[in-house]
C-alpha cells in the first residue's frame, strides 16, 4: 500500500460549492412554503415559474456557449427562488419570466457565468423589473417574502448551521449592527429590521459567496457599507428598495474593498 504524503492542510470534509448552494436552497424552502401558505397558489406559481425560467435559461445558455451544463449545482435555482421572494404577490407571470431571464442571462452569463458575476443575479433581475415595469412592482402589495420574520430567522439560523464556517457571517453581523446603531441614532422605528426583505437581504443576499469580498476585513467593510446605504435610502426613499439597491451598490465596489483589505503575507520579502 502506497502512502501519499501531501502538504497540509489535510482537510477531509465533503464540502463543495454544490453542497453549499443546495444548503441555501434547503434553508429557503420553509420561507417559500410559508409564503405559499399565506398567499396561496399564486405564490406557488410565481416561485415555480421563476425557478423554472432561471434553470432553463442557464441550461440553454450553457448549451449555446458549449459549456458544461451545471444546472445541477443549484445556483440558478437560488437565483430564481430569491427573485421570486422579492416580488409582489400579484405580479404577472410574464414580467417574472423576463426578470428571471435577465437575472441569469445578463447578470450572470454575460459576465462569464457562476463565479464571475459582479452583481447578485437575483437583485439585478429585481432592479430590472422595478425600473422597467414599476406599475407591476407596486410596493403597496405584500411581497412573497413579507411573512413572519420568525420563519425567516429560523431559515437564516439553519443556513448558518448548515454552511458552518463557509457562510460570510461577518457581513451579516456588520450589516445588522450598523443598521441597528443608525436606527437608534436617527430615532427611527426599530421594527424596520424585522421586515422580510431586510432579513432576506442581510442573511441570504449580502452573504452571496460570489459577489462579496473574500477578505475577512473586507466583509466587515461590506456589511457596514450596506448598512449605511440601507438607512440612507430608508430616510429618503423606499426602505425595501433601499435594501436591495444598497447590496447591489456594494457589490460593485467589492473588488475595490478586496484590494484595500488584502492581508499582508506572513513572510514578505521587503524590496
Amino acid at each position, binding site marked *: 500500500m502506497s502512502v501519499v504524503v501531501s502538504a497540509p492542510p489535510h482537510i477531509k470534509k465533503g464540502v463543495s460549492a454544490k453542497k453549499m448552494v443546495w444548503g441555501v436552497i434547503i434553508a429557503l424552502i420553509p420561507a417559500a412554503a410559508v409564503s405559499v401558505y399565506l398567499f396561496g397558489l399564486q405564490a406557488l406559481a410565481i416561485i415555480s415559474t421563476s425557478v423554472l425560467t432561471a434553470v432553463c435559461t442557464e441550461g440553454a445558455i450553457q448549451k449555446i456557449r458549449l459549456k458544461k451544463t451545471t444546472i445541477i449545482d443549484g445556483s440558478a435555482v437560488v437565483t430564481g427562488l430569491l427573485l421570486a421572494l422579492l416580488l409582489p404577490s400579484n405580479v404577472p407571470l410574464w414580467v417574472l419570466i423576463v426578470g428571471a431571464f435577465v437575472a441569469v442571462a*445578463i447578470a450572470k452569463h*454575460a459576465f462569464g457565468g457562476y463565479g464571475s458575476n459582479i452583481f447578485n443575479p437575483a437583485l439585478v433581475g429585481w432592479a*430590472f423589473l422595478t*425600473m*422597467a*415595469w*414599476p406599475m407591476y412592482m407596486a410596493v403597496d402589495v405584500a411581497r412573497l417574502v413579507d411573512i413572519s420574520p420568525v420563519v425567516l430567522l429560523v431559515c437564516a439560523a439553519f443556513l448558518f448551521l448548515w454552511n458552518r464556517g463557509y457562510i460570510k457571517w461577518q457581513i451579516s453581523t456588520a450589516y445588522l449592527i450598523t443598521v441597528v446603531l443608525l436606527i437608534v441614532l436617527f430615532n427611527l422605528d426599530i421594527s424596520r429590521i424585522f421586515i422580510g426583505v431586510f432579513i432576506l437581504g442581510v442573511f441570504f443576499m449580502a452573504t452571496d459567496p460570489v459577489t462579496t469580498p473574500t477578505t475577512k476585513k473586507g466583509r466587515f467593510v461590506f456589511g457596514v457599507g450596506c448598512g449605511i446605504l440601507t438607512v440612507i435610502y430608508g430616510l429618503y426613499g423606499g426602505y425595501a428598495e433601499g435594501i436591495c439597491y444598497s447590496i447591489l451598490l456594494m457589490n460593485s465596489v467589492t473588488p475595490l474593498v478586496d484590494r484595500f483589505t488584502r492581508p499582508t503575507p506572513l513572510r514578505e520579502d521587503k524590496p
Partner: protein
Amino acid sequence: MSEKSYAHEFKKGVLKDNPVLCLLLGLCPALAVSTSIELALGMGAAVIFVLTASNLIISLLRGQIPVTVRIPSFIVVIATFVTVVDMTMLAFLPPLHRALGIYLPLIVVNCIVLGRAEVFASRNPPAISVVDGLGMGTGFTLALMLIGGIRELFGTGEIFFMGHTLLQVNIEPAMLMILPPGAFFVIGLLLGLINLLRDR
C-alpha cells in the same frame, strides 16, 4: 486618390470602423440622446455637419498648424462649427434644440470629431478628409438611430418619426429602456452581437 479609395474611406466609417459600435467613440451622446429615432437623427445630422466641415478646414490648414498647439487649434475649428449648428438649430428647429440640450454644445469635445481631426484630417488631403468625415458621421448616425430605434420600440411600444407612427408592437412598454440603464443594456448587447458576428 482613386475612386475606389473614396468609396473605401466612406464604407470604413459606416461598417468596419463604425465609431460607436466598433471604435467605441462618442459613447456619451450615444448613451444620452438615443431615446428616440428622431433625436438620434437630429444629433447625427449635427455631428455629420461638424465632422465634415471641421475635417475639411483642418485638412486645408494641416500645413500651417504647428504640431505643438494642434489640439487647441482643432478645438477652435470644431467649436466654430458647433456654434454654427447650435445657432442654426435654435433658429429653425427650437424643439429639437431643446430636446438635445447640453449634448449639442458637447459635440465640441466629442471624441469622434477630435479623433478624426487628429488621426485623419491632419494627415490627408481635403477631398478624402471630407469623405472620411461623411463616412464617420453617417456611421455614427446609423448606430445612434439603431440604438434609438431599439430603445424607443421597447420603451414606448412604437416608433414615432416625423409625425407618423412607423411601427407599433403590442408589448407592455418597459420604462427602463427610455431611462439611462436601457442605453447601457442596448449598447452592451449590440456590441456583444457584433463581436459574435465578427468571430464567425
